[in-house]
């Protein structure tokens, strides 16, 4: 059916054909690009208000956006087959870098997450957000699906190694995202429901020992704070109380752009990074939140659609897991800021300030575009 659609294309009109030809040649998904541009433009406006109307922050974010979009377009030009072949190597290099972090890395705020390369600091864990689903997708692409038990175990180990290395840094938010990205690939590959429910049961059983031995004190505090933010009004609960106040006081209409008292008067901590959604909710109201959610939803549907239409299982698995991971970002961030989930440093994708996350996310969408244009390229 899809072949029919493509074959009809040149017959429609020469103008459209030329344009389609252009999009195909440069490997861009125009719908996805439009949605991303809308989202990042909106995000930039919100950020301007959130960062105390500092044009410096805007310019820095704008510079990262340009780098991110260029990166996305470069990644989109890559041959999917080549990406697949490079995946295992990238995975091994990534693991090596993660091991290097505690040995030679630099710390900030009590955690070691950064590697410094010739004055340029970067976070290997950020890279792993793309590398892990790539590696898992590569692993299943060469095997019959649905996967057999030994392959499931093998892929779980592939996921667990980087996840645990990052959780040790410690960076709970990123390790959750990376575990999720790998698990989504596993899920989309068709892992049996028995395994899924079994794992869920196991997780439930292991909750107590996890609490006792794995979670750090500050992480426990965050979870306890979620249950009762009033217990520590000026400490861990402060963020949640202030962000809920910001969101709630926004109402339907919002207080107007740059008029949010909670955010403009600095009551809201981390207002331009992880808690930026509270600024949006305060200044743009529920209307703004809904608009943002709709854009996210459209991006996710587009991503899932690209996955479903991919030619090979590698592209399918990769596109699906990148898209679903993107959704986890959105859900965890909006959930934690509104007091639905514990606070685990996850930014609001493409809106929060932060260069690395922006570049990684856009590179991920570059992969989606490469996958979405691959089919047509083959047809040509």
């Amino acid at each position: 059916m899809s072949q029919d659609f493509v074959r009809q294309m040149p017959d429609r009109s020469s103008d459209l054909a030329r344009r389609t030809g252009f999009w195909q040649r440069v490997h861009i998904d125009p719908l996805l690009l439009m949605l991303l541009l809308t989202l990042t433009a909106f995000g930039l406006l919100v950020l301007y208000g959130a960062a105390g109307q500092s044009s410096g922050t805007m310019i820095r974010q704008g510079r990262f956006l340009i780098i991110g979009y260029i990166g996305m377009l470069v990644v989109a030009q890559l041959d999917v087959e080549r990406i697949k072949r490079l995946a295992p190597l990238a995975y091994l290099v990534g693991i090596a870098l993660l091991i290097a972090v505690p040995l030679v890395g630099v710390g900030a705020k009590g955690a070691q997450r950064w590697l410094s390369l010739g004055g340029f600091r970067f976070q290997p864990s950020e890279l792993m957000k793309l590398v892990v689903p790539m590696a898992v997708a590569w692993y299943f692409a060469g095997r019959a699906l649905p996967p057999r038990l030994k392959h499931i175990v093998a892929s779980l180990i592939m996921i667990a190694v980087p996840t645990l290395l990052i959780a040790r840094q410690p960076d709970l938010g990123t390790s959750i995202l990376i575990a999720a990205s790998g698990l989504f690939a596993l899920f989309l590959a068709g892992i049996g429901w028995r395994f899924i429910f079994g794992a869920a049961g196991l997780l439930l059983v292991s909750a107590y020992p996890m609490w006792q031995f794995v979670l750090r004190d500050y992480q426990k505090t965050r979870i306890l704070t979620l249950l009762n933010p009033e217990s520590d009004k000026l400490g861990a609960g402060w963020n949640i109380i202030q962000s809920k106040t910001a969101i709630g006081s926004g109402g339907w209409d919002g207080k107007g752009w740059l008029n949010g008292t909670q955010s403009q008067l600095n009551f809201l901590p981390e207002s331009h990074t992880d808690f930026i959604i509270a600024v949006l909710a305060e200044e743009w109201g529920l209307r703004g939140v809904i608009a943002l959610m709709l854009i996210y939803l459209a991006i996710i549907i587009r991503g899932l659609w690209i996955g479903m239409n991919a030619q090979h299982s590698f592209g399918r698995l990769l596109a699906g897991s990148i898209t679903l991971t993107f959704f986890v970002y959105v859900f965890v961030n909006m959930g934690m800021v509104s007091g639905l989930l514990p606070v685990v440093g996850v930014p609001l994708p493409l809106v929060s300030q932060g260069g690395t996350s922006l570049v990684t996310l856009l590179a991920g969408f570059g992969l989606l575009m490469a996958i979405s244009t691959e089919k047509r390229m083959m047809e040509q």
Partner: protein
Amino acid sequence: MAEQVALKDPYTEKRIYGARTIFAALVVFALLSLLMARYFSLQITQHETYRTQSDRNRVQLQPVPPKRGLIYDRNGVLLAENRASYSLTIIKEQVEDLDQTIGLLQDLINIDDDHIKKYRRLVSRSRPYSSVPLKLKLSPEEIAIISVNRYRLPGVDVDAQLARHYPQGELFAHVLGYVGRINEAEQLQIDEVNYSGTNEIGKIGLEKYYEDILHGKVGYQNVETNARGRVLRVLERTNPEPGADLTLHLDAHVQKVAHEALGDERGAVVAIDPRTGGIIAMASTPSFDANLFVGGISTKDYSRLRDSIDLPLFNRALQGQYPPASTVKPHYGLAGLHYGVITPQSKVRDPGWYKLPNDDRMYRDWTWQKKKRGHGTFVDLEQSIVESCDTYFYDLAYNMGIDRMHDFMAPFGFGSKTGVDNTNERSGLLPSKDWKRIYKRSTWYHGETLSVGIGQGYLLATPMQLAASMVAMANRGKHFAPRFLKRLGDEEITAPELPMIEVEAEHWEAVTHAMEEVVHGRKGTANRINRGLKYRIAGKTGSAQIIGIGQDEVYDEEQVAKRKKDHGLFVAFAPVKDPKIVVAIIVENGVHGSWVSPIARKVFDAYLLDQGMLEENTDAGLIAQAAAESATE
């Protein structure tokens, strides 16, 4: 590998993938709906609650500290004021590397390690977003240096506030006291609401005594703040009520003269206007710069003051308890006349010593220690006062008895606080048989009466008490609890009048005439100050013996270390006919009253002549009389 490839089924894979994707999409919808519900609940259902909370959040009621009342002398000279003071503060939260910032500041301006230690202690106890002072009282140069380097010192700020300042430096330190940081004990006593914006409180002196009046009433303002408490906008304001200004009886010029006359000696001068009880001067040397205490004194400065053997923090005028020595002889003479123990004509044999009946112990006259003789074969009351004869007063004391001496002296203010409006006043000691029984658990001996009879022994008085007793002497029995405060706003303050001391007028006359002769008589112990006097002074010298002298020892001034020498005292009032000022002076180790009396002359001149008090309220006759009297000298 090849085997597995053979088993791959693209159609099944795609079908499974599609099903899983649809399932995932449904979960995505479900979770987004959950988020939607959450935001709907916060923004629509609970909107009112959060809007109220948000309004409350940004608006804060802040106390506005009142301006502390100023203090003036009688002529409007400013003694205590409020000046803008600039301090260097750091907000820790805004500083990237605290050590580096402090290091940089140390390169720029002079900051003691002491200050840094104190700052670190403060910082560890305060919130990261509060601004903590590192250095107070910045100089204009320091402010300029910091302003220029502001760009590389994020989080560093210069804050302005009003700080107490004492423009006269150490001249009034003992009178005014000073303000300092409110400590924990004071925190419990003050009205927390009224002091909510105030950091400092009167610690001693008038600053403490009149704290309630000087402080004023706190004001309030509704301000919009950010989370760090930085004020962005004032929404509403109730102005504070400033503290009332005090006008004192003190005369800055006389105070300065008294202070300088004391020079490098350790001593005190108290001058009171006998007509009002108003204190004209109260000097205690050595003194200190009260400004050091404002905003917290450094450990170095404080230990220097505390550990000095000259005790500059000790207010000798109110806290120094000294044997009044011969300065109380006029009082005893008055008592003798009053009780009929003596008459102005009765005489006592004076060989230079005195012996109690049935006792071989010799009580020496002070002349004995120099010349081994008395003041003459027989001496009367006037001569005994003029030449300060001890033998006469040994005899008088013996005949009067300690309890009558106590009862007569008490109304003059000995043995109890004068009630002056200042802090830390001591009561001195006026002994009696009861006192000794209760406090010493011992009976009274006649020999002790003799010591008290020449102002020694157990008898102790503060310079303020001596001056207050001179007020009664000068006024012929009318006297007051001395007062510093002259005027509060427009209200004149009158010193509380004490019960009149009822003594026959002729007795007053006899004693004050003798005192006049102390200064103006040929043999008067203070006659060195009468040269060129335009008015007449009545006074009495004293030497307080502070080491015991054995029966056969000879007192040798040269050999006794300066610190063991007698204290020199002098009490006086002037002009004799219409007293306008009394003084009491003590110079520790000042040897003798005659050596101290020139200080009184300077103080009298400063008040009566320099300040024109002699002419004021004085009829021409009195001036003429004074002039005539001084001419005949």
